[in-house]
């Protein structure tokens, strides 16, 4: 799947996805509301340590973190140059540029880490199912689950079609020509339509259109999940007030 690409399960994996979503939202709010650089650094460090504890962020997460890190020098340059224009001495420009860009990088890091932590400890299908607990329509939850199921299949299908055409001498470098896309796009489109039609018929035969019930209800929160969500929201509110 997209995430959930880590090894050992931890306590956080067993927490109901909606409770984790509440916690992640509170942490994202912290990134916007706290202005103390030290406090932001502490939150980022705590989140980083937790992410390491749960077994890492997976390939996607590492790429996101690498992209964030790559953006830092650019942010620093932008802020330094913008202060330079105000005619201040060079060391001051460098310091302010460094400080402001560092603060923004930390805010970004907190947002990325909070989301990665949610993704790394949540099975997307469990999340889709738990949305039923918030009265999200069954059809939407099912659609979300279906997308999650078919995304890897679609990626595999594109790969297979590309391989089939390469076996007939098709070269990727010709893709700059619009008509060269046809050998890839037509089979992908046809197979997707075929798959969608088959799935629709299968769902219909299994009573999906009966309108009685379509997905199992989400499991109710346990006490520890109420405590977890309350503790996260409380801590984040405190941070926002102090910082």
């Amino acid at each position, binding site marked *: 799947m997209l995430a959930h690409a880590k090894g050992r399960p931890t306590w956080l994996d067993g927490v109901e996805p909606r409770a984790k979503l509440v916690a992640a939202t509170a942490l994202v709010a912290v990134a916007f509301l706290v202005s103390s650089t030290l406090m932001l650094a502490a939150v980022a460090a705590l989140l980083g340590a937790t992410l390491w504890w749960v077994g890492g962020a997976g390939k996607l997460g590492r790429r996101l973190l690498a992209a964030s890190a790559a953006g830092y020098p650019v942010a620093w340059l932008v802020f330094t140059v913008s202060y330079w224009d105000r005619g201040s001495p060079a060391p001051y420009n460098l310091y302010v540029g460094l400080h402001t860009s560092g603060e923004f990088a930390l805010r970004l890091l907190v947002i990325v880490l909070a989301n990665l932590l949610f993704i790394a400890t949540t099975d997307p299908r469990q999340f889709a199912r738990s949305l039923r607990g918030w009265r999200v329509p069954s059809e939407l939850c099912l659609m979300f689950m279906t997308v999650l199921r078919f995304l890897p299949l679609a990626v595999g299908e594109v790969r297979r079609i590309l391989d089939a055409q390469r*076996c007939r001498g098709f070269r990727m470098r010709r893709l700059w020509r619009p008509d060269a896309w046809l050998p890839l796009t037509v089979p992908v489109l*046809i197979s997707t339509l075929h798959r969608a039609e088959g799935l629709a*018929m*299968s769902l219909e035969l*299994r009573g999906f259109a009966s309108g009685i019930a*379509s997905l199992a209800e989400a499991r109710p929160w346990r006490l520890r999940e109420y405590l977890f969500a309350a503790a996260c929201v409380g801590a984040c509110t405190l941070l926002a007030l102090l910082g």
Partner: protein
Amino acid sequence: MAPRIAAQDIWYTPIGGEQPILRGASLEIAPGECVAILGTSGCGKSTLCQVLAGLIPSRLPGEFRGRVSVRPDDLRVGMVFQDPENQLFAGTVEEEVAFGPSNFGLMEAEVRARVSFAMEAAEVTHLAEHEIATLSMGQKQRVALASMLSVQPDLLILDEPASNVDEPSAEAIFAAVGDLRASVGVSVVIVDHDVARARRVADRVLRLEEGRLRPLGEGEDLEQPLPKMLPDGQPGRTLAETESLGFGYEQGKRVLEGVNLALRLGEAVAVLGPNGCGKTTLAKHFIGLLRPTSGHVMLLGDDTARVPTEILARHVGYASQNPDDGLFARSVREELAFGPRNLGWCEQEVQATIQRWLGILGCAHLADREPLTLSFGEKRRISLAAALATDPEVAILDEPTAALDRMHNLAVAHAATELKHQGKAVLVLTHDRHFADAVCERHFILQSGALRSVRGVPC
């Protein structure tokens, strides 16, 4: 006894179709009866199933005439499609099987009982917690069956349930259906190509021909074995070979281990084995789609790991398992021209090779048709012709007979024989032993990553 379902004088032409697929087909099925429907590829068997399931004309509109009556009025129909990939959507096997009964607003205990029964009947109980994506094709087919059984249908329709699976998986599916009939008295319609199996499983065997159903006569057998097409001469020099080939998709998990196989001029080699044993993985090494983890694959003296697939395509023709993978052009003629044009052939040569391969595979009459509108059997032959149109020294045919009837099998067998006569090497990956017997001089079985010779001189 009053029939459970009666289809009378059914005529159906799909939207955009020129001719009716069904032309007055009639069928009655009694409670607990099992009816097998046979027929050539593209004759309308799946269409008839969709009519019986009530998907035509409500879900798949077109020009429909005739009458389908059911008893009781709320007859519940379950249908397992040919491709299980298209009907499974849930995360785990248990969720998939529970989806149907959950939709009917049943109590949780009842849902659980039905899920348990269906998984036991389809022999997938041990897979309950497994993710669908990790299952083999045979396992997916059985999960698809369980997902329909849990709805407790009065009529169960199985559209070529064995077309994508190996023999043991097919037998397991048919055994499960037999048990189900005995235990709950469900009526069953099975579409299949295997006459012997159909006669064994079903109470009645019908043949769909020119849009109508008729009983299959005692002496009538679509499954006469293919004639042997093995030349007497000795094979020539080696064109391609694997040397201690090892490969794994994940570290520590080997799909192939120490595989040695030589493909020689004028000879066909069959690699047999159950679903998921690594036949396609082996084939992909010859065309450079995969690089060996250990060992080498040599083609005309070059290591395939060092040559791009696009260059290897000049010497290797690879017809993949699914004919839909490559078809895109507006006419069959253009489809076949794609490969040779990619390789820079002049137009005169392109037209000559198109004529030749369309003729060999008996598809000359399809030259101006749109490939995507053809039947599965026709698409299979067109995709074979497209793979061979570049006149490759080595031809790899991956499950060339899957979902094909005998007539189309024969056309494919003739094409493989023609390749041998032209001095090409042919590698056939299949679980169809009859086809391998008819065409291939040497047989190997791929099991647990190792290749074992079962006929001819090992290599």
